[in-house]
């Protein structure tokens, strides 16, 4: 025989409902955080990888000199900055306003690629970033604060780049170290 739906039943039902609702909310929140973290981590990895690929692309072609006019591959070599030159259009000159002149600068938590006179931010949230310059034996050249002079730059056979990116709100950082050889066999 049913005695109806009493106050106690209602309270128990509400309590159970709240528990279930809380569990669902917690699950949704956790899932959302996981999703955001995964997206941010993936984006951080992509950003770091793209920065490394861009540097690789530019270092590989540094010194491209089809008219043998004596293009200097590396025009500036500092710990937080490297500038590269190439005669891509084979006109015998390096145009400072075009992509024949590129530079990478790590400052203020940002890695930028300078193309000609235009700055293109590659990554924010950079926590460490450094260029090293290796000679023919793979040994890093001693790097003065003012950077390598012309004679030392002529000895550079490869550029090494270490970068760490930590997007805001993430615990895990994206790290890359790449060594790119200049494409000159002389």
């Amino acid at each position, binding site marked *: 025989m049913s005695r109806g739906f009493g106050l106690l039943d209602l309270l128990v039902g509400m309590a159970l409902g709240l528990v279930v609702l809380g569990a669902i909310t917690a699950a949704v929140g956790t899932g959302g955080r996981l999703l955001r973290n995964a997206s941010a981590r993936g984006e951080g990895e992509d950003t770091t990888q793209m920065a490394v690929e861009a540097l690789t692309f530019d270092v590989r072609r540094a010194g491209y*000199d089809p008219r043998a006019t004596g293009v200097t*591959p590396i025009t500036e070599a500092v710990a937080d900055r490297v500038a590269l030159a190439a005669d891509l259009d084979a006109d015998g000159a390096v145009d400072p306003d075009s992509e024949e002149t590129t530079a990478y600068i790590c400052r203020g938590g940002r890695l930028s690629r300078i193309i000609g006179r235009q700055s293109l931010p590659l990554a924010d949230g950079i926590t460490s970033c450094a260029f090293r310059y290796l000679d023919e034996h793979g040994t890093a050249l001693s790097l003065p604060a003012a950077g390598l002079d012309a004679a030392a730059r002529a000895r550079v056979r490869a550029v090494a780049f270490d970068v760490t990116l930590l997007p805001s709100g993430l615990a895990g950082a994206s790290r890359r170290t790449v060594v790119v050889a200049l494409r000159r066999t002389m």
Partner: protein
Amino acid sequence: MRGERGTAALAAALVALAVSAAIGAAISEVARTELVLAQTRRAAAAALAAADGCLAEVMTRVAPGWDFADLLAGPDGVAGNGDDGSLATPPGCTGGAAPAPGAAATRARILLRIDASAGGGRRALQAVVARGSVPAALLWLGTLPAADAIGGSLALDGVDPAAGAPAWASFAAPAPPETLDAWAAGARVASSNGTLPAWSAGPPSLAALAALVLATPHGDAGTLVTSGAPAPTLAYVGGDFTVTTPLRGAGLLFVDGTLDIRAALDFTGLVVASGGVRVAGGASLTVAGAVWIGSTLAVDGTVGIRADGAAIAAVDGFLPLPRRAVILGQQDLD
């Protein structure tokens, strides 16, 4: 009442299921996107590595010389027909050669284009190739002799005494690196510490070098002296040459035949023998510089060759020596 509770529970379960499915689908999509990106990167990296490897292999096939006329003439070596500019490339890539801007007449520089496919990706690159330094090999062999042809001693010192000068390779010959290593071990070639490993190279272009020597003022075997310090000069011997008394010389000694050594020959510079070198038991060949041999080498006596870049540079001042092909620069096209 039991039915209403069941309906509410079902609804809550469905909502939870829907939310979980949506989150799972979103995470799955993120993972799928990352996977596609990673696969694309991997394919691009594999293709770029293949292009780099193809270029490196093509470069090893370019014989030392003075220009690139032979390469531009294509595989048949005849200029002015359909295969001009086509390159013989390893599997997985194709390539072509064209004169570099500003160097069309001299053929001194060329542009090599390489297209490679690997791992589902495709990449292309272009390299500027020019002539670099004289091959820095102490002993450049046209053919690799049998290991037992070295019955005496063959000592190679690739450390140039000049400060800062690069080390030299022990020897060069037209054979794979592993064959060269095996030969050096079998022939008990003694290489000093610091000497670079042997490298694979085609035979030296001695016919072209002989033509250059003949077109340049030169002397003959009489430029070799028995004592004192000989002045660097060009010497050409048109045929076999036998050394029966101790001789000294400097500069370039080009023997267009077999150099048969039965006494001591001490030379500073470049010794070339198109027909081969024989060193009899008790005899010796001592060279500060390099020895280029178009044919065989047989050593029952003693051969010692040490690097001397200055001596080779002096010869290069008399007449231009063949040079290795080097990459001046490179750019990725797509």
